[in-house]
């Protein structure tokens, strides 16, 4: 008789003994810690270092952000009199400015409405199991026009000068416009780069390489100081439009490379099959190649959008106040001086949440596309 049956006092027929739990040195929290935290000397040192870091950072951060923080107050001194932590009252008092910028108060429903419409327009683009997706996509294509009309005005709505655009709204306007208009341009550039016609190819390659070789800031400077030289004398066009043109061109250079990756991933047989069917170039692109290539490129397009969305904060260097610019300029208020950390942390948390969600979506999409093959 074996040891186990002796101890439990039961007898089993040969081969029917129930499996014993693995010993604690192989499985369970202790074994896990031994394996994953204290496996070797370097590992142990690393663990201790990490724990020490957490011990130093977490309590101090919690203290500053929540325990000692002040949520209501009239000025910085008011905050400091209550507690030494973060002064969130400042953010609270400026929240509307952070979102709408200087958009006139009575017209702000237009911003809200276009935000709601934007979300509705995004649903059919992002999820492919929406009912009536085809019709909904037409609405998504028309949406930029509706939003432009709502935000700028005219045709029955009060006109809002574009220099009153600001805050988060400006970030979203620039980011969305850049990505929407860069998509068709990017497709053309990507096709041009893979074209058989040498001149078309050279032009596409030099445009893409130029755009990718210079920083966005310099292009924004070009928009601010140089672009108005290239229009006929006497005409004057809006700084926001000039900025949008440059941002669109910038994004289309990156978009072209993302789509080129998608085009290259399509097996050669697809191109050859399209040729064999007697389809012309544009027919084969429109019906066979691009639908497949664009589908593969969506994660890359989302990543490009994340990058562009983060880069919209750069408009600050040509004097436009986006969400970060509003934060920066409100620091000049003598009532609230010296609260830069609060402002930056608030804006950082905001960007982190939105960009993190977008990158999760892109990962989800990548996984979904991957399983298809």
């Amino acid at each position, binding site marked *: 008789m074996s040891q186990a049956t002796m101890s439990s006092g039961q007898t089993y027929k040969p081969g029917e003994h129930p499996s014993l739990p693995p010993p604690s040195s192989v499985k369970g929290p202790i074994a896990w810690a031994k394996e994953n935290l204290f496996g070797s000397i370097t590992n142990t040192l690393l663990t201790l270092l990490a724990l020490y870091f957490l011990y130093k950072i977490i309590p101090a951060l919690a203290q500053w952000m929540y325990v000692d923080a002040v949520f209501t107050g009239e000025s910085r001194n008011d905050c400091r009199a209550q507690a030494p932590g973060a002064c969130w009252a400042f953010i609270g008092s400026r929240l509307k400015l952070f979102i709408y910028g200087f958009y006139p108060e009575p017209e702000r429903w237009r911003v809200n409405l276009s935000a709601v419409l934007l979300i509705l327009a995004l649903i059919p683009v992002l999820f492919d199991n929406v009912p009536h997706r085809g019709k909904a996509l037409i609405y998504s294509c028309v949406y930029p026009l509706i939003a432009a009309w709502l935000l700028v005005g005219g045709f029955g709505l009060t006109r809002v000068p574009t220099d009153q655009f600001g805050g988060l709204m400006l970030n979203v306007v620039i980011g969305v416009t850049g990505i929407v208009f860069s998509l068709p341009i990017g497709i053309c550039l990507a096709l041009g780069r893979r074209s058989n016609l040498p001149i078309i190819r050279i032009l596409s390659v030099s445009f893409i390489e130029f755009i990718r070789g210079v920083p966005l800031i310099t292009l924004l400077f070009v928009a601010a100081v140089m672009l108005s*030289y290239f229009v006929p004398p006497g005409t004057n066009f809006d700084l926001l439009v000039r900025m949008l043109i440059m941002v669109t061109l910038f994004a289309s250079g990156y978009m072209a490379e993302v789509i080129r990756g998608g085009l290259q991933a399509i097996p050669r047989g697809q191109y050859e099959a399209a040729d064999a069917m007697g389809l012309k170039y544009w027919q084969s692109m429109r019906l066979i190649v691009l639908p497949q290539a664009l589908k593969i490129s969506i994660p890359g397009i989302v990543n490009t959008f994340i990058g562009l969305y983060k880069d919209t904060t750069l408009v600050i260097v040509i004097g436009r106040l986006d969400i970060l610019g509003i934060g920066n300029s409100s620091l000049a208020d003598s009532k609230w001086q010296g609260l830069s950390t609060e402002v930056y942390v608030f804006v*950082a948390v905001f960007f982190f949440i939105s960009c993190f969600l977008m990158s999760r979506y892109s990962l989800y999409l990548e996984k979904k596309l991957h399983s298809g093959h």
Partner: protein
Amino acid sequence: MTTTVAKAGAGTVSEPNALLTLWRNRKARSVIIQVFTMAVLFSFLAYIINNAVLNLQALGKTFSFDFLNEPASYDINQTLIDYTSRSTHGRAMLVGILNTALVAFCGIIAATILGFLFGVIRLSNNWIAAKLVYVFVEVTRNVPLLLHIFLIHGIVIHTMPGAKNAINIGDVIFLSNRGMTIPKPIFGDGITFTVVAIAVAIAAIIALWRWAKKVQEATGKIYPVLSFSLAIFIGLPLIVFFASGSPLTWEVPKLGRFNLRGGLVAIPEFLALWLALSLYTAAFISEIVRAGIMAINKGQWEAASALGVKRSWTLRLVIIPQALRVIIPPLASQYLNLTKNSSLAIAIGYMDIVATIGGISLMQTGKEMETMIIVLFIYLCFSLTISSFMNWYNKRIALVER
């Protein structure tokens, strides 16, 4: 009568037919499309250049780069070469280029080291360290770089103590709201010998590597190349240095009554930009490194150990060469991004190319066209240099397929 009508009719019908046949001919069509594209492009260029000329005339401006020889009359807070406010705009541009190059160079080095470190930690089986790095990477990647720069600049400027109570690290390095002060090397006359010795040592090491590789390929005999080259690299310059009478002294910063004196000062703007660029890019590089190492098939490890190759050799001879092939192309684009992102310097007043020639010089001279063309051109040069170097390196380590 009827014949002429028929002829005329035939003529009008055959003309579009000829065009159509021309259009249906593949070669002819491609020529037509390209000529048409060029024509559209050139007329567009002619149009905007004409507009620019008219606009410049209307404003009474000329298009010339002569302003580069005029005095700049503004100060720059960090100059690597001699510069005063009486120097020319051209000189200011040079200072700006050097400042961009400095922050890009330091940033690339720091970002590479940190990025590889973080990437390896994320792959290690230490759960807590891997998770900690994961959180760091996600937070850093998903926040705009400009915000990082502002935040670090704000911390250096507002929360560091004044120069009087600077944080003292071993009486050598001082941290204050004026930046970081480190000892400044002062080179004596004989330093050239040491520099030459370093160059000779590097050349000797390369020759040693080549020779050792040849011997190994021919006979299979392995020499301890690494320890030999370390000995050459440290030993030779050191011997020459002492033989030439130690021509190097350090100017250690001293904490005076009110201020720090002496030493080499890294200004807060440089520190903020450098740290922000390095951390931001390191987050991206760590992901690239992680993906590169994960892309190597597990079978490679197993095959190497089946052949009896030591674990440390497996990493060096089998895994890393293959991982580098995956890592290098995206790494190159990260280096490019870092260099381009250094243009955010203008937001905190670090005087790089954009801030000098594209900022203050532009304001003072009103030469928007010329200055912007210079700035764009310089960035293109930077980008092309880095990408051609990385392409060369990539080609060198690329898989030779038969």
